[in-house]
């Protein structure tokens, strides 16, 4: 009986190959831009994009209707800082493409060809409601980690939404260890590499003359040119308050930099400075341990205090995992709602919390015009939830990405079905599938 239940649950979602024109009606509709849910709302997706969402939206003729039966309907979750698609099993090095410790290249690395849309973490994260992810390489031996991408988590082979969507660099303790041992070395190396890239942009032939003493490979220089001119957002891992202030000052030398701060554990101490610089932040919001000397003031009220100061806050899931459990985004956002209700603590409203895992990360990476909410023109990434999406244990009942219905079945589901009754039957478990 249990097995029958499982199979029927797995079979609920069909797998059409093409984008559907679809209207989801009777929804508790969450746009994802920080506005309040709309009871009895409708969202219409045509040609893979949202064309209308709200109350009193007419369903065009010929568009398939899905009755949400009053359940929450939201944009898919955008994982704000992740390694989804870059690793299958972290400790199995051949399956792990997060970083390139022995490469002679750094900023020029481009993760796009390393992404594996068929990896099981893609399916597991998708089944928890994540439809897009900002994916960054990890730093290893060089200061610059390389160029990340914005991806979708659909069950097809085309994972890249936007390649070279960001450059990643770590300051603070991690950056110091790569630059030679001190924060002074980090700031100098950063500046010298960007100046070298600027020279390269003015005179590409000069690179050949630098020879073996070159500070940069050609590919690295090209990538940093795009950082200097603001084409590629620069994601900077930084936690200590003084480091944050100094990173914000980088715009003095390189005014076109599009900075995004990642981590920002002690950010609440300099919330006004971050807000004044109009630099968005992506934080892992439940970090509250002084687990290093650059995170002494860690508190779960960081997100709420930054938001209250006017900072654009995205909630990510990292420091405890960054590839396999992006579904924690909803749990973490839910915790921020709980904090807002606790005397003395700071958190977010439900509407702010949901936006922090949908439209805010899209905005941080400069793509809120195309993903992250159900406003017209955005990708048709839609989730029907079985319950409040920020509440524990809620799961998607149906997901569309670019208007295509998605499988919610994972390898984990197959294992659970096989062992719903652990005893072996007439034949060994190996025949049970």
């Amino acid at each position: 009986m249990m097995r029958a239940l499982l199979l029927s649950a797995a079979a609920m979602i069909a797998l059409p190959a093409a984008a559907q024109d679809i209207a989801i009606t009777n929804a508790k509709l969450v746009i994802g831009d920080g506005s309040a849910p709309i009871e009895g709302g409708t969202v219409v997706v045509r040609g893979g994009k949202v064309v209308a969402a709200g109350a009193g939206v007419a369903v065009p003729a010929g568009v398939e209707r899905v009755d949400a039966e009053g359940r929450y309907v939201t944009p898919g979750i955008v994982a704000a800082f992740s390694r989804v698609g870059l690793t299958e099993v972290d400790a199995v090095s051949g399956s792990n493409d997060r970083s390139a410790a022995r490469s002679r290249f750094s900023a020029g690395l481009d993760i796009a060809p390393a992404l594996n849309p068929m990896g099981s973490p893609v399916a597991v994260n998708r089944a928890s409601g994540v439809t897009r992810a900002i994916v960054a390489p990890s730093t290893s031996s060089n200061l610059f980690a390389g160029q990340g991408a914005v991806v979708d988590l659909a069950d097809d082979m085309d994972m890249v939404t936007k390649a070279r969507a960001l450059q990643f660099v770590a300051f603070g303790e991690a950056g110091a260890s790569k630059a030679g041992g001190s924060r002074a070395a980090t700031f100098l190396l950063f500046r010298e590499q960007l100046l070298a890239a600027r020279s390269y942009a003015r005179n590409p032939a000069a690179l050949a003359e630098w020879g073996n003493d070159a500070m940069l490979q050609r590919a690295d220089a090209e990538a940093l040119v795009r950082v200097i001119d603001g084409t590629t957002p620069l994601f900077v891992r930084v936690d200590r308050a003084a480091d944050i202030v100094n990173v914000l000052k980088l715009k003095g030398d390189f005014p076109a930099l599009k900075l995004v701060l990642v981590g920002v554990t002690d950010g609440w101490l300099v919330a006004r400075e971050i807000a004044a610089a109009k630099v968005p932040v992506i934080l892992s919001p439940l970090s509250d341990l002084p687990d290093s000397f650059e995170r002494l003031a860690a508190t779960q009220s960081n997100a709420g205090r930054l938001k209250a100061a006017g900072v654009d806050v995205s909630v990510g899931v990292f420091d405890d995992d960054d590839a396999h459990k992006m579904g924690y985004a909803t749990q973490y956002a839910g915790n921020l709602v709980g904090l807002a209700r606790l005397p003395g603590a700071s958190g977010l409203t439900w509407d702010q919390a949901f936006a922090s895992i949908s439209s805010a990360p899209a905005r941080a990476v400069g793509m809120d015009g195309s993903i992250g909410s159900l406003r017209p023109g955005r990708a048709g990434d839609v989730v029907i939830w079985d319950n409040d999406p920020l509440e524990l244990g809620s799961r998607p009942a149906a997901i569309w990405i670019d208007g295509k219905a998605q499988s919610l079945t994972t390898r984990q589901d197959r294992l659970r079905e096989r062992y719903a009754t652990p005893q072996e039957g007439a034949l060994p478990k190996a025949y049970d599938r």
Partner: protein
Amino acid sequence: MIHGVKGSLLAAVSLALVGCAATGKETASAGSKPAASADRPAKFDKNPYPSTYKPYPGRPTAVRGVTIFDGEGTRIDDGVVLFADGKVEAVGGADTAIPAGYDVIDGSGKYLTPGIIDIHSHLGDYPSPSVDAHDDGNEATSPTTPEVWSEHSVWPQDPGFSRALANGGVTALQILPGSANLMGGRSITLKNVPSRTVQGMKFPGAPYGLKMACGENPKRVYGGKGRMPSTRMGNFAVNRQTWAKAAAYKKKMDDGKAVDRDLAMETLAGVLTGEILIHNHCYRADEMALVIDMSKEFGYKVSTFHHAVESYKIADMLAKEGICSAMWADWWGFKMEAYDSVNENVPLVHHAGACAIVHSDDANQIQRLNQEAAKARAAGRRMGIDVSDAVAWTWLSYNPAKALGIADQTGSLKAGKMADVVLWNGNPFSAYTRPEKVWIDGALMFDAMDPRRRPVSDFELGQPGEGDVK
């Protein structure tokens, strides 16, 4: 992973052993029968670092109008709990009489539970800040180190203890050595009370445990040094040889023969006599089955498999053997032996009639074990295993108390037991809920409404964020 949590997980995830009865400062004879003075067995103190913990003063307290999960599976709506002198006095319905002189707390809309007990923590041994100087969780210099005791590494000033209290409602926890070694050393069970010394935190009378570890970690750590073990079969060979030596040591003692004092063998002999409980880090089902046979070969019992990512594959065997599984709700994919994780592991183990425990092994997740249990319960419900809120709470307090040998003292709200109690500001299986008050032995140790009832460790004093809400 931007910083070291996953790194430390890979290197150190595991349980610790603990061992030894810590019941009183008894001076035990190593031998059981009189012997000639020439070969009189050595006498040694089984409890040389005794607990100095004494409950802090509390006030007679009544919480009324509250939803109660008693920790053993019973729910009482609109209930009353009375505690005084450190003990639970009564747990009942709205008609329970409240004696005069009690502080009365209106619990309407709130929930009252036994404190959460984390059976797998490294707080103090891997404290914050996680600098090299604090890396005290694994004596990774020999594949078997049953002679080390985790309590000798615990730094009581670890700020993580206060986070587990204030955000997690954790009132007791087992500190285990890491999993680099096959036999990592003794564990210790602590009350989650701040103290100048680890002795001031030790749970009075709790048995010691011995941490053992299967699988990838020991063979990687020692194989990487060109030493045995470098394979799973090497793991078993080293374990069996060590148990054989321990059995011979114990026989010598039982026969009243003189033995040179051997701290490692004392711990293992304590396991063989049943005084010390085995906590065995083990992910894979097939390895757990082999460990069960090894335990029978040498005559000991496994209390709990920790991590136990594949317990669902052998839940029937674990039920039959009476072995607990301490599990995460949904951690997976960080290493090969964590690849076959399913979100339904906890409810599947429970459903098979085996003992299920939700554990953390992590200074962050220890702050929301209630949320982990909620996710596991929801996954079970989706596959038709309907576990009530009150029954699911057994995964968080009573079952870990049983596995630690302290269920007669704590882990549920029963008259006469320690008043280790959490008042939650809503249903603790909601993401929106936080502890409002936490009592340990009836003393109010945390109050979300009172910044003065918020522990601040020495390390945090005078630092940015001192005394913050965290």
